[in-house]
């Protein structure tokens, strides 16, 4: 099975203190450390596990700049065979639909049986997977938390629905799936693994290679970011006082009142 995973490099939320810049239209980007969008990492791991069971290859592609090559290296160190950097000045300012258009062009120039994305980008809005499927006219399932390969070009997938319940579906290949975190336990990649793939070439594709000139980028974007703000802090936590028994009683009462206990 030939699998494409669409990945993205984002500021690592666990290792940064995210602050707004002075102009208030973006976050302060000095001193940030970046890593692969976490759900995308689960998608790569899932793709690798499918390939271990059913054969095939994993390709990881990202739309971004030169710096984004580092996440491709990391995912290749995990075991992805190919990494593709889709990069062009003409892409900057693209909205979700623009990214989906770029990826659609890339998919059409290749052959993939299965396309995975993370459930959402930590710095964006879970748009690309669904749009990409629609543009390719592929079936789509979101929030996938288990995949089983069936015979006859089908997958059995499980989708997470509210309350931790699972919905089981069969889906025809080729398809696009957005992968929920927790679907697997991604393998560890350290500096050594990355160094070992350091000399593997990573092709860069531009707008001309994909034939998407004019259709993407800031000018074609129909969604534009106008502001960035941190919501004002809400009321602080309520501290319960009294003896241990009183605190427990109050807590049970509050949980009951809010529907936490039945």
């Amino acid at each position, binding site marked *: 099975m030939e699998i494409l995973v669409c990945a993205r490099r984002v500021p*690592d939320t666990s290792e940064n203190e995210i602050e707004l810049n002075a102009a208030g239209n973006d976050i302060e980007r000095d001193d940030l450390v970046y*890593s692969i969008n976490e759900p995308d990492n689960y998608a790569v791991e899932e793709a690798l596990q499918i390939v271990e069971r059913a054969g095939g290859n994993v390709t990881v592609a990202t739309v971004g700049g030169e710096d984004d090559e580092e996440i491709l290296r990391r995912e290749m160190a995990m075991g992805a065979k190919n990494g593709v950097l889709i990069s062009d000045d003409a892409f900057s300012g693209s909205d979700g639909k623009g990214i989906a258009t770029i990826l659609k062009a890339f998919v059409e120039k290749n052959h993939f049986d299965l396309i995975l994305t993370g459930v959402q980008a930590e710095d964006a809005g879970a748009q690309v997977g669904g749009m990409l499927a629609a543009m390719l006219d592929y079936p789509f399932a979101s929030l996938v938390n288990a995949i089983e390969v069936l015979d006859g070009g089908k997958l059995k997938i499980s989708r997470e629905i509210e309350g931790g319940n699972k919905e089981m579906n069969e889906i025809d290949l080729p398809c696009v799936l957005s992968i929920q975190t927790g679907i697997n336990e991604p393998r*560890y*990649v350290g*500096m050594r693994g990355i160094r070992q793939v350091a000399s593997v070439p990573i092709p860069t594709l531009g707008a001309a290679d994909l034939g998407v000139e004019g259709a993407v980028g800031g000018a074609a974007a129909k969604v534009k970011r106008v502001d960035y703000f941190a919501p004002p802090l809400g009321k602080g936590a309520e501290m319960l006082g009294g003896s241990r028994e009183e605190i427990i009683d109050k807590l049970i009462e509050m949980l009951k009142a809010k529907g936490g206990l039945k």
Partner: protein
Amino acid sequence: MIETFGSPSQATYWFIQGRILFLVLHFLGVACFAYIVAKRMIPLMRAERDFRFDHPWTRLGRVLQFWLGQWRHPRYRTAGTIHILIFAGFIVLVMRAFFVLSLGTSSSSAMPGLPGRAGHIYGIIQAYAATVVFLCMIVAAVRRLVFKPARYAVPSRYGKAHTADAIFLLGLIAILMAADSLFEASRAAAQAQQGREVEFLAVLSLPWIFKAALTAAPLPVLSTLYLGAYLIHDLAFFFLLCYRPFGIQFHVETSLFSIYFAKLNRGTIKPVRWGVPDAQLDQVKSFGVKTFEDFTWKHMLDFYSCADCGRCSDNCPANAVGRPLSPRFITTKARDYCFTHYPVLGSANNGTPLIGGIYSEDEIWSCTTCGACEAECPLLVEYIDKIVDLRRGMVDDGKVPQSLQKPLKALESRGNPYGKMEKKRAEWVKAKEFQQTCSVKVLNGKQDTDTLYFVDSITSYDDRIQAIGRATAKILSSTGENFGILGASEKDSGHDVRRFGEETLFMALRDQNVEAIKASGVKRIVTADPHAFNALKHDYRDVPPVEHISQVIAREVKAGKIKLNPVENENDVYAYHDPCYLGRHNQVYDDPRDVLDAIPGLKRVEMTRSRDRSFCCGGGGLALFYEPKEDQRMGVKRVQMAVEAGANVIVTACPFCMVNMEDAIKVAGMEGKMTAIDLAELVERQMVREEPPERRLQAELPAPLGRL
């Protein structure tokens, strides 16, 4: 058989001349043993390299201490005493065995032996030695069958009990001793009946008792006993010889080599590959131990030498709290694997992965590298290097628990496991009250500073632990020390990164630190973190000498530069908890205790498990992030030990111990009844200030902040 009491070599056994029979038996026995040992050498030949041929005199000294001197055996008094007696008996009986065996194949009918008086004296000593060994077999069997010490039990997940094997072995040795004694006694009894000169038998020795029992036995019976006992002795001897390489009894042969080649430099971790410099590690295809053959030959020798005594697991904190790790079975499972995959008959079938085969991932991550097992093993079997090598293999294969991946990633990008910003590493010195009384400079290489205070990540970033950093800085400045910190250019020491198997990341952190330390131009390093202390001392090269703050304090107290006020509450009882990387790995036991004893009015008790038997608090560095499967926290067990000792204050000298102890006190519901304090915090609290702190504070308050 004719009635002969000369040499069994002259007798006839079932129409075969004794000499021929024994020549054949001895040849078969020795050939068999040589073949089996050669087979046992095969995995060692295929193993990884290990450099153990240096320092021959030191190694010889250790053989004298730990092998001949049985140094660690008395730590377990009963079993240790029994072992020392058996060992001494065997040493004495080696010569006797040669004499007796050569009798069967010699053409002379006289028993060979030492000449004259020496022979008589040796005769008496060896008779008692055989008797003592025989009695020890009985005592050991009774212990195994009746008293059943808990450490010999085999939990069901590790397989069947080893009791039957142990009894079989004890029985074999007992038969060997009894046969030899009977052989000697029957001849002496016959000599007495025949009115010939009777050999002197040591009073109350086994031969003496047998002779007394046989006084009235008819000569033909004595003759049969004499020749029969000799044959049984011969068979038992060679059976035992060839049976030894199949189990724990192999340590009789291998222990000498295990101890000679034992690790000399405690606190260190073996390189990824012996003989491969760091710069060439990128070319090494696979890291760590993945298959059996990835172990070094010395580590395989350890598997052969383990006597299954259970002392390691008895002291292992992971085992004590129900984690899926018991060091004893790390060894015995590997030995079983080796015996199955390198069979004596047939060819080797090797190469299957160990993780998922004989070991589980959780088992290998459960170790805190506290070193209690290694401190106890009478045969100096090594565990930490094996655990680290197995972890290196897992890290190389990407098998790292999710709970550790985040901190490792953060260490890679930010140089600390919390993912905090580098520029905030020195924020702890800016606490308002602290800054007013003690200013700590961040070194830039231009100041002429003698001493570097290496803070490390937890003390730099953890709100609670920063207090230890501030106490350390105050102590250093009160003794007039010209010191500074590295600030943002300090990275995590990487101590536990290395011990969790991430060698490449460790090397990156180490190299950055070494560079920063060198650039600072300091002449010595002080740290309050035993993990950083151990890393700087053993894992780093070409850095200035390093001391732990407890060593500095002890010296300054002795020199009178630090004076300590009496304790405020005289009812408090203090117990000192030895941090593993200060105590066991670096033998700093007395300095912290001397400091405590220098505080007037301080009552101090010792926990049963102290010094080199200290019980790990739960582990430091990445161990704080690991989520083990366990019944209980190590720290909770440790707090209970402090309660048992009658203490209500636990003093430690390690930031990780502090985190674990304070958590454990909360988990155990002991808040208010037990407190934990770091040695540096305690000393800072008790320190006699040159001027009253109030006056000094008032004097400095109006000063502009810049002047401080």
